[in-house]
C-alpha cells in the first residue's frame, strides 16, 4: 500500500511558459507532496504546445491547478491540457491552508 504523501509546498507561478528559466527553477524545486498552481499569465501553459519538454521536469504525481477566472478572462475554454485542474478562487485559499507553505515564482 502506498502511503498518501503529506501536503508540503504549494508553488504558485504567474508568468507565461515563455519564461523557460522560471519554469525550470520552479519544477526543479518540486518534491512528492508538492503542488503547482498556475495563475495569471501562467494559465497559458495549459494551451501551450511547446510545454511538454519543461513539463516533463515535474513528476506525474505533482498536481497542477489553474485559476478558472484567469482562464476565462483570457478566452481559454477548450483544448486545455488534461493535467491541469481548473479551480475557483476559494479553492486557491483552501490550497494555501492545506499545504504547509507556499512559494511564489514570478
Amino acid at each position, binding site marked *: 500500500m502506498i502511503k498518501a504523501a503529506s501536503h508540503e509546498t504549494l508553488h504558485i507561478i504567474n*508568468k507565461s511558459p515563455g519564461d523557460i528559466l522560471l519554469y525550470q527553477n520552479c519544477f526543479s524545486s518540486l518534491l512528492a507532496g508538492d503542488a503547482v498552481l498556475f495563475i*495569471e499569465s501562467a494559465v497559458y501553459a495549459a494551451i501551450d504546445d511547446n510545454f511538454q519538454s519543461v513539463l516533463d521536469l515535474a513528476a506525474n504525481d505533482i498536481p497542477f491547478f489553474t485559476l478558472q477566472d484567469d482562464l*476565462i*478572462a*483570457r*478566452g481559454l475554454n477548450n483544448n486545455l491540457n488534461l493535467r491541469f485542474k481548473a479551480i475557483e478562487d476559494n479553492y486557491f485559499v483552501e490550497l494555501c491552508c492545506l499545504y504547509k507553505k507556499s512559494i511564489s515564482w514570478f
Partner: protein
Amino acid sequence: MADKNILLIFRNPPFADSSNRDSLDIALACSAFDIPVSLLFLNDAVLQLKSNQQSELLEQKNLLKTFKALAMYEIKNFYVLGSDLQRYQLDPKQLVISCETLKQTEVAILIRKFTTVINL
C-alpha cells in the same frame, strides 16, 4: 530628414504589464503625426488579439476595442508569427484584427523596412 516609418514590436501577454497599452498609445500618436505605423506581435503578444477574452472578470481593461479601432487611424499592417499561433493553438480567424502571418525568417526582413523600431 528622410521620411520616417515606424515598427512597434509587442512581446508580452495581455494584462501582465503596461507595455502593450504603452506601445498602442505610441502607435496612435505616431499615426496622428502622419508617420506610417506597423505592428509586429512576437511570443505571447499574439494572445492579446484572441477573441472571447473576458477581461471584466479581472476588473481589467482589455485592449481589443483599441486594436479594432486602429483601422480608423490608418494603422492596418499587423504581423504575427506562424510558430506563435501554432504554439498557442490559435487560428488566424480567432484574432480580432486581420494579421499577416510570417515565418521566423521573415521577421528580420520586415524589420529592415523601417527607419525606427520601438520594442517595449
